[in-house]
């Protein structure tokens, strides 16, 4: 792993956490991987659910049928209904879009901000670097949940706050990885060589530093997306997420837990959707990462 070295142990962590996901038993190339296949299929279905939910669940996720409230899974509603008689399957499918959007938007904030600030810190002079690095530290001094709570106190609950909170909370992590990577690339032999070809500094950065720094970023983003979705579910669970009646998974979970004793399906199914999504993203991300690492060395 060459992408992970940082100057402080904290930076190393950040890196180990994401750029070095445990890749148990390096496997043979070409051997079919049922896990990867399943994860990929699931993600494709997820994207379909997010883009054209009607394809998988033609109903209206908000259509309430009070008379059919809390129906157990069966022929009519094969994942049951919730307390207002809304179809759980339809809601889970339509929720995919909400959850993915939140995850993607938060990750976009984190990755864009992280890459920009990380690059800046990595390329800047010592003092600017120090100041930026300390501000990453200060930001990560707020646990995600606390940061989200703080932000929600400021901006009020809702999808936007949720996205910004998760984005900002995960930003320092990306920034640190990018900074470490920038420092590494900056000192790499090929950058030094490029100086001796007579390349100007901006060209050097654009041609050699930037591309090599952002190489691993998409991988980070995929794994980060899983984390963001998980974090969003947690915050929604505390009632800090999207407003009802949005079928966001975390919000569904939060609602469902009040009915756990009488309608387990309201909790377990959205929960399974969250878990499966995060697992699938992690599996795909790690696989990609392993390929990437293989290419780097």
């Amino acid at each position, binding site marked *: 792993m060459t992408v992970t070295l940082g100057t402080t142990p904290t930076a190393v962590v950040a890196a180990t956490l994401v750029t070095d996901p445990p890749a148990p038993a390096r496997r043979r190339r070409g051997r079919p991987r049922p896990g990867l296949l399943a994860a990929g299929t699931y993600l494709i279905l997820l994207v379909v659910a997010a883009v054209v939910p009607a394809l998988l669940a033609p109903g209206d996720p908000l259509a309430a049928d009070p008379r059919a409230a809390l129906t157990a899974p069966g022929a009519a509603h094969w994942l049951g209904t919730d307390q207002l008689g809304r179809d759980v399957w339809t809601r889970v499918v339509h929720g995919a879009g909400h959850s993915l959007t939140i995850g993607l938007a938060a990750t976009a904030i984190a990755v864009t901000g992280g890459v920009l600030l990380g690059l800046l810190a990595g390329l800047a002079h010592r003092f600017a670097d120090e100041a930026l690095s300390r501000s990453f530290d200060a930001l990560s001094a707020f646990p995600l949940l606390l940061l989200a709570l703080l932000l929600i106190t400021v901006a009020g609950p809702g999808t936007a706050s949720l996205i910004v909170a998760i984005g900002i909370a995960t930003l320092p992590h990306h920034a640190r990885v990018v900074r470490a990577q920038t420092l590494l690339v900056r000192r790499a032999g090929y950058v030094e*060589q*490029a*100086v*001796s070809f007579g390349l*100007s500094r901006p060209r050097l950065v654009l041609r050699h530093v930037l*591309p090599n720094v952002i*190489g691993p970023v998409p991988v980070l983003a995929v794994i980060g997306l899983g984390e963001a979705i998980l974090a969003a579910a947690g915050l929604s669970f505390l009632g800090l997420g999207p407003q009802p009646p949005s079928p966001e998974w975390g919000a569904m979970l939060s609602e469902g837990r009040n009915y756990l004793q009488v309608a387990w399906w309201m909790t377990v199914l959205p929960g399974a959707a969250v878990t499966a999504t995060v697992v699938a993203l992690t599996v795909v991300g790690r696989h990609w990462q392993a390929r990437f690492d293989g*290419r780097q060395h």
Partner: protein
Amino acid sequence: MAPLLAVEDLHVTFDSPTGVVEAVRGVSFTVGAGECVAVVGESGSGKSVTARTLVGLAGAGARVRAARLDLADRDVRSYRPRDWRRVRGRLAGLVTQDALVALDPLRTVGAEVGEVLAAHDIVGRRERAGRVVHLLDEVHVPEPGRRARQYPHQLSGGLRQRALIASAIAGEPALLIADEPTTALDVTVQAQILRLLAERRATGAGLLLISHDLAVVAQVADRVLVMRDGRIVEQGPTGRLLRAPQHPYTRQLLAAVPSASSRGRRLGEPAQVRDGCAVPVLRRTPLPARPVVRPDDAVLDAVGLTRRYGPHTVVRDVSFRVARGETLGLVGESGSGKSTIARLVAGLLAADAGTVTFESARWSGVPERTRRPLRRRLQLICQDPLGSFDPRYTVGRVVAENLDPGPDRTDRVLALLHRVGLGPDLLHRHPRSLSGGQRQRVAIARAIAPRPSLIICDEPVSALDVSIQAQVLDLLGELRAADGTALLFISHDLGVVHHLADRVLVLHDGVVVEQGPVGDVFSYPRHDHTRSLLDALPTLVTAG
């Protein structure tokens, strides 16, 4: 009496992601008590795997097969882990490759050395510390008591290697296996280690010494095995093997060793020999003539270069000139400041004092902008070519990057690749899929692309096997002749410098202790340091 170690038809295969690797294919040899047997061969020939197999540590996924594998009269083929544990350290001690990282960095040297004693309950807990100090003393570690309490990173490479040997001999094994114990060490240290190993023989232990460097083992080994592709291609008493090598590969290996005697001649492609017909002497074909050196026409002029890192002055008042077409060798131990000088000269590092003039223009102390137009005239080749390529680039792009853009750029790249002996099929390959020699050739192609007047070569062959090193050195010799390029050639290998350079600069602790024509400096060294470097240099006693 049966030999200490008897191996017959040993096969080791690995299941790897790319298929089955046959690392060792039918190796047979013996090591007797008090005997020193050396195994030589290029990288990947299966030396280390053989060594590890002898202590039951062939590696993950290894399959070992042998007609005979006897260690001190015991058949170890069916040994289970528990049985192996009793062999390791006690019957057979292994000095593993990579001495610099073979000691646990988080534990003290003493704890590492003492581990064998604890694992086999050789001495009680209380006497252990004393025994460790004794062992360290035995391998000539100065101040053993203090060193035992230190961590590996606080020890120099040579000391670490000695500590490692101490840990391998702590259990007084009958057989000591040393896997490349001197690679990555300075010549002076290397000589000490070899002497140390030879001492073990006196105690009656058998010694299996592994190296890729024939010259190194020639001094201590009784017998030599030459390995290639997992097979032993030739074995015999050291003297005979060096004097009258039977196998073409052995001959090639011997011919590839650069030295004073090889000056002006090719190292690779030894004179064609017909099988069966013994050729007692190695013949080398001559290289094209050296470019004409005009001593007063300086390409580079460095005056009073000084560079400090914090409180340490790593380069102190270094002055030299490189004339057009001249090859200036720069030698010195590790850490003596060679690379720092290269970087100062290349304008990648600012000097604290001193000036550099390149092509009659001020080169140091000016903004990068002013240097830029002349940049192309000064090129750089370093030890790790892979690290000097943008990991995203193909071979073609790597070379093209140093060429002016133009419609015929691809043709020019192909021509350059052809000059360094690489085919057009490599154009779209990634450097990481090339061999070490090929990579260094790509780096050379890139360096000669803008027709520079000076190329700085910072240890360009140190990471290469002798035979590949030979090819690269030959290539440099050819190109130099054809283009009249001056070289600043850095190496810690005196042989290489002697082979290639016109003049030499000896560096010690950042200070130039001696400089002059290679012949003069190496034949009549005036400075003690130069002398000790030369004394330690292992030389092959072969006819030239």
